[in-house]
């Protein structure tokens, strides 16, 4: 299922555009009634139209790209930051552990949506974005915000595993053979963290996809011309009682995607967790 979703994310939009002949940002007067209310599915518009009269099928396919891209990239950044912070905190302990762990705790206590609203608003008033153009409005800001609020989960988990691993005999053996800290971290600790990290990454991806959907639902995600399941659902909120298709199709894709990643994560955890086999 996940492979299929990834294929949809890569090829779905262009293929949908090719087969329907409807570019994702083209508006079709015939697909809204005289009051501007969108029309439902028909033989040309398989998922109906959105409130601007665009082909919802094409938009939903392109939305897969946005959702998976944000989910995977933000998770990748969060993994990297969380891994480094968790390793340092767990391995060295003491003052470094206290500073890094408390910093992660503070981030966990921060109201995420509230901060996200502020950051996105601050970065969206100019073409350049913020931080001297480093943070562009749209997807880059969304990814940055999600990353900032995701890495601390990973860091906590990595720290816990590292605390446990550093007391293991093979680490002691490596140290007694004169290995440097860097070598121990790279050769002894990291390989033992890969299993749990893959599991948690798989579970973090759907969380981040939903976070992006939530931001876009609030109008803080991607620009209006870029499709995202969250922004389509935002569009649907004003028409939920007269245009069921607006909520059903992107909603169904969102559910299937999050469910698929969750099931994969659960499966991987069962596979990696030796105790669960007993």
């Amino acid at each position, binding site marked *: 299922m996940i492979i299929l979703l990834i294929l949809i994310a890569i090829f779905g939009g262009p293929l949908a555009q090719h087969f329907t002949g409807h570019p994702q*940002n*083209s*508006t079709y*007067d015939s697909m*809204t*009634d*005289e*009051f*501007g*209310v969108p029309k439902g599915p028909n033989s040309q518009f398989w998922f109906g139209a959105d*409130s*601007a*009269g*665009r082909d919802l099928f094409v938009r939903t396919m392109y939305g897969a790209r946005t959702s998976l891209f944000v989910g995977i990239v933000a998770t990748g950044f969060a993994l990297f930051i969380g891994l480094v912070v968790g390793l340092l905190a767990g391995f060295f302990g003491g003052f470094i552990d206290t500073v890094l762990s408390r910093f992660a705790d503070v981030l966990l206590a921060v109201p995420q949506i509230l901060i996200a609203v502020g950051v996105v*608003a601050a970065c*969206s*008033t*100019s*073409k350049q974005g913020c931080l001297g153009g480093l943070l562009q*409005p749209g997807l880059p800001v969304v990814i940055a915000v999600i990353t900032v609020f995701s890495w601390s*989960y990973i860091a906590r988990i990595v720290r816990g595993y590292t605390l446990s691993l550093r007391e293991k005999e093979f680490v002691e053996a490596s140290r007694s053979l004169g290995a440097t800290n860097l070598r121990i971290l790279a050769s002894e600790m990291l390989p033992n963290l890969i299993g749990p990290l893959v*599991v*948690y990454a798989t*579970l*973090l991806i*759907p*969380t981040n996809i*939903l976070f992006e959907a939530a931001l876009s639902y609030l*109008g*803080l995600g991607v*620009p*209006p*011309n870029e499709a995202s399941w969250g*922004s389509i659902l*935002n*569009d*649907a*909120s*004003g*028409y*939920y*009682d*007269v*245009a*069921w298709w607006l*909520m*059903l199709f992107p*909603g*169904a894709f*969102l*559910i299937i995607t*999050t*469910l698929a*990643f*969750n099931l994969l*994560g*659960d499966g991987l955890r069962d596979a990696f967790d030796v105790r669960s086999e007993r």
Partner: protein
Amino acid sequence: MRRSLRLAAFAVAVVALAALAAGCGSSKKSSGGTTTTSSGSTSNVQTSYDNGTAAKGGTYTIGWENSFGFTDNFDPTGEYLGNAWGILDNLLIRPLMGYKHAGGAEGNQLIGDLAESVPTPTDNGLTYTYKLRSGIKFGPPVNRAVTSKDVAYAMNRLADPKQGGQYGFYYSVIKGWDAVGAGKAKTVSGITTPDNSTIVFHLTTKTGDFNLRMGMPATAPIPHEVGDCFNGKPGDYGRDVVSTGPYMIQGADKVSLPCASLKPMAGYSGANGQKMILVRNPNYDQSTDQYRKNYPDMFKFLINSNADDIYAKVQAGQYDDETSSPQPKTIRQYVTNPTLKPRLLSNIGDRTWYLTMNLTQPPFDDIHIRKAMNLIIDKEALRKAWGGPLLGSIATHIAPPVMYNNGLTEYDPYSTPGHTGDVTKAAAEVKLSKYDPGKTGKCTASACKGVLMIADTRALDNRMVPVIQADAAKIGITFTVRSINGAYTTIQTTNKNVPISERPGWGKDYADPYTFFGELFDSRALIPSGNTNYSLVGITPAINAAKKLGVKGTLTGIPSVNSDIDACQAKLGQDRTTCWENLDKKMMTQVVPWVPYLWANNVIIVGPNVTHWAYDQFSDTTAYSQVAVSQK
């Protein structure tokens, strides 16, 4: 990490409930049990409503979306929100000049309100003398007759920047006005009160619309006994507005002077509060007022954050009226249901919605590109995004025809078939531009790619932006869209250098074209923030430096219309109207700052208990002084 599964489960539940709601909502039966027809017509939508006999009594309840949004907490001196003007002028205050509180052209005709009549200027148009009507008293807690000195007090309050006035610029034509603003005088020397029933204004220049300016709420009398309690506290008087009209804020009779013991009136919980309740003013004498009918005993303005809930309550009769914006689905529901349709009311809003283009920013620093934009935009599609023809007529120039006594109705310098845009005409215009060096009919220069467009985050913006993007792409212009909640702040800040925005709209302050041209295109009014001349018409390098506007772009060769505005201001009657018409034509052909697309209608839905409803053309709101409701 189990959180992910819970989130997924939550998402499943949300979509399932939504689908259920959608299924329920798709029923052809409305909640009231009436049957909808498959299609309806936007024709025959009424501008007023009668449903039985209008009688005294009852409570008229208005659902108000989100928050009052007042600009100065309802203090008449600084309040600049049209919806607030509707309440003030109909129910609470009586300026020297007033209106009949009617819809259409009649509603824009000036009458004497506190003044006995509309005066003719003397002294070659430089002196205006108003005689006050007798029998008009302040409501509680002041309870005394209104005098000309109370009008002078209100005017001096407006002239003092510390009191929060927001449109004092209209009165700078009065002698000595600016001296008060500069702190060089305490009172305006050009305002005199020879006796308690006469007030005289001496002007520095002929101002053809001066009587109209004396019909705005800030000019209504304020008693010094209460006004002095709020010196230097802009907006605080809003919770203790002393009535001269038929109603007063509930609790006005429970507060007392002097200032030390004066508390806010209980009926109004402030601009960020949830309610405003108005009751009858015991000191109001109906015989002094020909046009206000004052049927209900009480008005309740109640805040409601959910637009769907507002319309559900209006339909159910829990609200009688609304201050919200009906979505396309709501309009369709009413237009297609013969039972509901009479309660959907649409009136001309004296307002233009437009795309603003910044004359200093590429590619809009080239007039041919601005003209091409006017030719390529599908205005009909934009109107549909608003909700279709009921929401207004297609705009083809700056000020709505009603501003010219229905002149310029046929004027459309960029006409296209069905107002849907014309690629051929637009491409021909682009070919004349420096941004199309190869004469391809497309804007091929890099300045045309990724042009910054500021949009808002309303559902409406999400419907409009794709239309504009798709149209502009036909002539090679692409946009980088930034959606900002409250986009006005950004586009009103000159150093943001916003090339284009689809957000702006402008409504009249009073029925004279000056309220469009003076505020929107006079380069002397340019300011760094809160600027309304978004296109920066008339800007020069000197103005940019002197006013610290921070504009970076093309600053030379920008046309100015300051002298045209001054020339029209000195005229009266038909000459004045013709002058403004010519300036409108000049704006559209020689300056081209906008793509005007909609002359908006104001669509209001009323509840089943309303027995009479009328529109107030001056404030572009419900004529609260005319409405009636059955006893509840």
